[in-house]
């Protein structure tokens, strides 16, 4: 095999488009990536924030109604005790998982293209987990007593039942939220120091100086930093799988037809990654245009994310097929009915929407032109987001409407409060994300500089030296 050095153009022809366009010098790179953070506030950003605030106020009104009047304001009933709330919970937590996947799992797999988008995806994780964590709490009925879920020596001497999946959820979600914050902030510290040093305004220098804790790029710090960051990635990887597994246990451990399935853990994790990549795409396509990140977030990134969506979309489709097969093969009439009810029941249009969005839509990514078209990617990512929400609704609420005893069957219809808690949370998520884009470096600047050096030193054709070398 020839080891002759290849030119950049040759390698790009072989490997697809670059992960970094051009070779800007470090100062220009720092300044351009920090421009959205340190520069003046843009009118478009203010208008976006204002529009999102309108949606957020609908969310706040819905929350107030829930807290002051009670969950009777929701459309939930018996048998449909879990509906929009838990659907939203699973949907948001699933969206969060792609962030951890991009930042942790792709780091361990030495995927160079993750570098520019990992911070962005981690921030998405944080805000999605924050939204997700809200629903189980407000669903408690008396949310101000949520701390009863925490094991503490109460005067009643009663402890949480650790043999139930719901206390597992408490630990899984709170651990996931905490670790996501730590991982994200650790990654931010060197960039906050860069922001401190690039900033011209005194206030910015002070604020970013405090936030960066006095990072001075010391080699003695970098040594521990790199190994610590890698270890956090290593810990996050099984964590993300365990969290969605535990979320799926909430259903799989029960006996309800449509829920009681051993395929749920892997199928839920694949669905989580599927929806999360769709959300990264939905956010990234407008953001890279608005903030001029095209140099570091290239068509290569979008194309790779489309491939991941195609792969996980196929896994999810396999889950659908296998659920039906097992329902038939089990010979259990209640289980068989639950799946026939998806095709023929009162909510069949949601099921068909789910099939359209999750099974058919990603198939377009077999075509290269579709993976490289921002319009196709954006529309498909929105459809997949909708489809994954529909999937959770079908699993959770539609299964509950038809349980074992026909006399207890009842349909579910959302109220304005249910809609407010869903649509409003999307606006709140968007608002938090807009604030992140405005005030914190959304692209990991130091990692892009490192990537640039690797591309220069080893040539673009050489896989970068990753964890094995760091761990030395």
């Amino acid at each position, binding site marked *: 095999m020839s080891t002759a050095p290849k030119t950049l153009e040759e390698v790009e022809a072989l490997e697809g488009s670059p992960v970094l366009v051009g070779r800007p010098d470090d100062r220009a790179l720092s300044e351009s990536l920090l421009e959205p953070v340190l520069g003046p506030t843009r009118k478009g950003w203010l208008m976006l924030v204002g529009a999102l605030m309108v949606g957020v106020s609908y969310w706040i009104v819905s929350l107030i109604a829930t807290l002051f009047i009670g969950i009777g304001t929701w459309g939930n009933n018996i048998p449909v005790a879990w509906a929009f709330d838990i659907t939203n919970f699973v949907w948001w937590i699933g969206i969060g998982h792609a962030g951890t996947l991009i930042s942790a799992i792709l780091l361990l797999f030495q995927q160079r293209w993750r570098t520019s988008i990992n911070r962005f995806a981690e921030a998405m994780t944080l805000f999605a987990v924050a939204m997700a964590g809200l629903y189980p709490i407000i669903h408690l009925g008396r949310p101000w007593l949520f701390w009863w879920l925490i094991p503490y020596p109460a005067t009643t001497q009663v*402890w949480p039942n650790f043999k139930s999946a719901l206390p*597992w959820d408490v630990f899984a979600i709170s651990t996931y939220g905490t670790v996501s914050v730590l991982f994200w902030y650790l990654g931010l510290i060197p960039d906050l120091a860069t922001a401190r040093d*690039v900033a011209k305004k005194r206030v910015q220098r002070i604020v970013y100086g*405090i936030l960066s804790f006095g990072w001075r*790029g010391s080699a003695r710090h970098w040594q521990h930093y790199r190994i*610590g960051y890698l*270890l*956090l990635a290593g810990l996050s990887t099984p964590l993300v799988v365990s969290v969605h597994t535990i979320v799926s246990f909430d259903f799989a451990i029960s006996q309800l037809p449509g829920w009681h399935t051993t395929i749920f853990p892997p199928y839920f994790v694949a669905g989580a990654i599927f929806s999360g990549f769709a959300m990264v795409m939905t956010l990234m396509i407008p953001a890279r245009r608005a903030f001029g990140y095209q140099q570091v977030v290239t068509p290569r990134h979008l194309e790779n994310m489309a491939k991941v969506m195609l792969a996980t979309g196929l896994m999810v489709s396999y889950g659908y097929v296998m659920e039906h097969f097992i329902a038939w093969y089990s010979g259990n009439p209640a289980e068989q009915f639950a799946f026939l009810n998806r095709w023929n029941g009162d909510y069949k249009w949601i099921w068909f929407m789910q099939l359209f969005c999750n099974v058919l839509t990603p198939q377009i990514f077999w075509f290269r032109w579709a993976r490289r078209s921002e319009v196709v990617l954006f529309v498909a990512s929105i459809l997949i987001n909708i489809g994954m929400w529909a999937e959770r609704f079908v699993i959770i609420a539609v299964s509950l409407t038809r349980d074992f005893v026909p006399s207890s069957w009842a349909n579910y219809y959302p109220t304005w409060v249910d809609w407010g808690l869903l649509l409003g949370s999307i606006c709140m998520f968007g608002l938090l994300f807009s604030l992140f884009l405005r005030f914190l470096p959304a692209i990991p600047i130091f990692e892009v500089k490192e990537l640039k050096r690797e591309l220069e030193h080893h040539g673009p054709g050489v896989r970068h030296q990753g964890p094995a070398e760091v761990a030395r």
Partner: protein
Amino acid sequence: MTGSYVLARFEREGALLDAARALRAQGHTGLDLHSPYPLHGADEALGLRRSTVPLVALGAGVTGAVSGYLLQYGTVAYLWPLNVGGRPPHSPPAFIPVTFELGILFASLAIFLGLLFAYFRFPRVHHPVFELEAFRSASIDALWLSAEVDIARAEAVAAELRRLGASHVAIVPGVAP
């Protein structure tokens, strides 16, 4: 002793690492390198020992997992044996998720808090190296070497660093707090 820091800017990674090796060979301690991204070869040039962060993480992770298991055993099997659906009070398979999550949580907290407050000794926003305005470039595009020396010897070290190829050398007074 009156402390001071000699700060020297280098243009190339190789020259920076060679300078660190040369000073270390002359018996200097208190050397450090500053760069906007992790430098390959810095650990060897400074003669740093292998990081102990993995051991800390392992210890904390095991502590978390053990305490997670004991928490569950102690509360639902020992203090208040709980009979739900006829499952035995001590049900090891059902205790796995919380045990695992607490192991991860403790290890992650130990890594984060340990790095920041023990390994880096942060917050330290008033370190003497920040006295030099040009040092701002250390987080943007420049490579710096810092040597903690007695003020009496600072000029000699500065001259040595110039000889080793530094493009800019400055002396700032002060000791690390």
